[in-house]
């Protein structure tokens, strides 16, 4: 079961012929993911690293029955790549690309309204259901099948969390990096909804950071709708206001988006807060007892 991705997921990689695309397509295949091919306009009909390449996502879907896409297309072409996958009927679109202009994503999200597909990212590590499928760039070996669902705005903090849970023997049902951009696909609430409904997920670890109010929204949602134990960490307590800390979404402005406010909101909802990023796993384990 798990969420979003499983061993039945058939993945097409958009931008597979690029350096990052081909490297990670191989890595995903080595992990056991069913990668059915790649898409690069103009290179249809060729075979790269053993993957058949198609000119369009529509052709790839028709030929391979792909139901998921992982995008490694340069930033200015990414919004179009997302829409192409959505148009071809792909159910799960994972956009890894970092640096997409915000207004491109505003337009893309509007165009996806009313469609049933799900977008994860952009600017994210992707989705992994340990032992079943890896749709992204995370190192596979730090994960282990288990009972904790991870949802995170940060890539490397997701690795940190997964590794700690693996070392504690808890493992992960699915780990989802939703990405650090201000305008993105799947948010905390949609992931929490999926994890709450997933029988394999026994507990949820949420990792947020400064910027926006999605952690506050998640706190209210958890309080009202989530029965499973939840632990959380919010990065950026020491971040100065008004500065973009790497992630375009990680900026505190107008007194909103502060880590301390987010932590207070989560605590108020009864969620266990990891005091440091070194105690993500321990805090989760404690909340599960």
């Amino acid at each position: 079961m798990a969420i979003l991705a499983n061993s039945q997921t058939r993945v097409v990689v958009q931008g597979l012929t690029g350096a990052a695309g081909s490297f990670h397509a191989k890595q995903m295949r080595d992990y056991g993911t069913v990668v059915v091919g790649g898409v690069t306009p103009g290179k249809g009909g060729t075979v790269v690293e053993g993957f058949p390449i198609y000119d369009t996502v529509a052709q790839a879907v028709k030929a391979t029955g792909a139901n998921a896409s992982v995008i490694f297309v340069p930033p200015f072409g990414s919004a179009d790549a997302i829409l192409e996958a959505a148009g071809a009927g792909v159910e799960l679109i994972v956009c890894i690309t970092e640096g997409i202009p915000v207004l491109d994503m505003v337009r893309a999200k509007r165009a996806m309204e009313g469609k049933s597909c799900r977008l994860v990212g952009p600017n994210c590590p992707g989705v992994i259901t340990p032992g079943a499928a890896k749709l992204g760039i995370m190192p596979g070996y730090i994960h282990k099948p288990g009972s904790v669902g991870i949802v995170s705005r940060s890539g490397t903090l997701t690795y940190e969390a997964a590794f700690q849970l693996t070392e504690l023997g808890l493992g992960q049902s699915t780990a989802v990096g939703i990405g650090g951009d201000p305008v993105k696909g799947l948010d905390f609430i949609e992931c929490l909804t999926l994890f709450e409904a997933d029988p394999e997920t026994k507990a949820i670890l949420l990792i947020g950071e400064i910027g926006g109010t999605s952690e506050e929204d998640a706190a209210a949602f958890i309080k009202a709708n989530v029965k499973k134990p939840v632990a959380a960490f919010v990065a950026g307590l020491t971040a100065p206001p008004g500065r973009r800390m790497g992630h375009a979404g990680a900026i505190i402005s107008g007194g909103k988006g502060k880590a301390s406010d987010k932590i207070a909101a989560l605590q108020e909802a009864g969620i266990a807060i990891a005091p440091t990023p070194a105690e993500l796993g321990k805090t989760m384990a404690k909340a599960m007892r």
Partner: protein
Amino acid sequence: MKIHEYQAKSLLSKFGLPIPMGIAVLEVGGASAAAEKIIQTTQNETVVVKAQIHAGGRGKGGGVKVVKGVAAAQEAGTKMFGKPLVTHQTGPEGRIVKRLLVEQGVAIARELYASILVDRARSRVVVMVSAAGGMDIEEVAAKSPESILMEHVDPTLGLAAFQARNLAYALGLKDQVAKNATAFLLKLYEAFMALDASLVEINPLVITADQRVLALDCKMTFDDNALERHKEVAEMRDLDEEDPTETEARKFDLNFIKLDGSIGCMVNGAGLAMATMDIIKYFGASPANFLDVGGGATKEKVTAAFKILTSDPGVKGIFVNIFGGIMKCDVIAGGVIAAVAEIGLRVPLVVRLAGTNVEIGTKMLAESGLPITTATDMADGARKVVALVSGRKN
């Protein structure tokens, strides 16, 4: 990226938005000539001399002077130019004023507020106006949120004329002024989208005594991710307004922000970099910087990052915290060793490696013979670097 008021106004003007007549002054003696030209053209003795720095609150800080005549304009300019201007946004040291904007004086009937930005919670661009112009909008939002009016824009349609009218009439504007304000907002939206702005703020947006609608001030910031497709905007970058180490870091495509603590941090991934700053604080010290070397860093990039850290005299210790995913631990180790070989090591260095190729990286560090303290996890590393730094102080 931020730009100056005069640059923002020149962009607005290209989109047909009305601005006061103004001339940018880049050297101390230039204010009088600018004032003279404006006075001649407008037949009005009143001019405004405005300090151009990337910070708000200039009026209260003494960076905006309304004066009469050429001599007074030059005097005001001389007083500001080359000197620090302190506002609530600059910090106590202020910013050195290196550019001025001299503008025509305007007879103001009403001061309003208008801005456009991305509402991330709704994934939409939002146009906001308020009758409380000239005031700090955050204060207005806190005290009387109902006085801020908004229209969210469907990006496939753009700002609809009726939405702009809604805002104009809700501000209590009438007749020709309402029409002018409607046209102003429509053009402002057009400029925002065409330039990939992340914020356009007109505060105040004024109604003049002769019923015109004018952008009296303008603040614009741009989406860094889109700058590559807006060369004319990218060229407006003022390096004097930016920290020189941040400028150096950008050359190597490093995400670097200078802070004022004592522990230099080198981390991969923005979230982990922020969390590393937090854990240093948790153990009782302060981070000297935010530094994300990114996922695809090369040995050269790591070396450059390490040099930037050690060049800061405030740095008393360095913590390298890496969770290798795409980034391989041996690349980090190689970069650190190369940098130390080149520039030496004057402060304690703690390295924590995890993830891809951790064994190779750790072995490289051990065999380098360099005085590097290794850490098993990030708490261990943070604790060690804080202890080493506070030990030096005592």
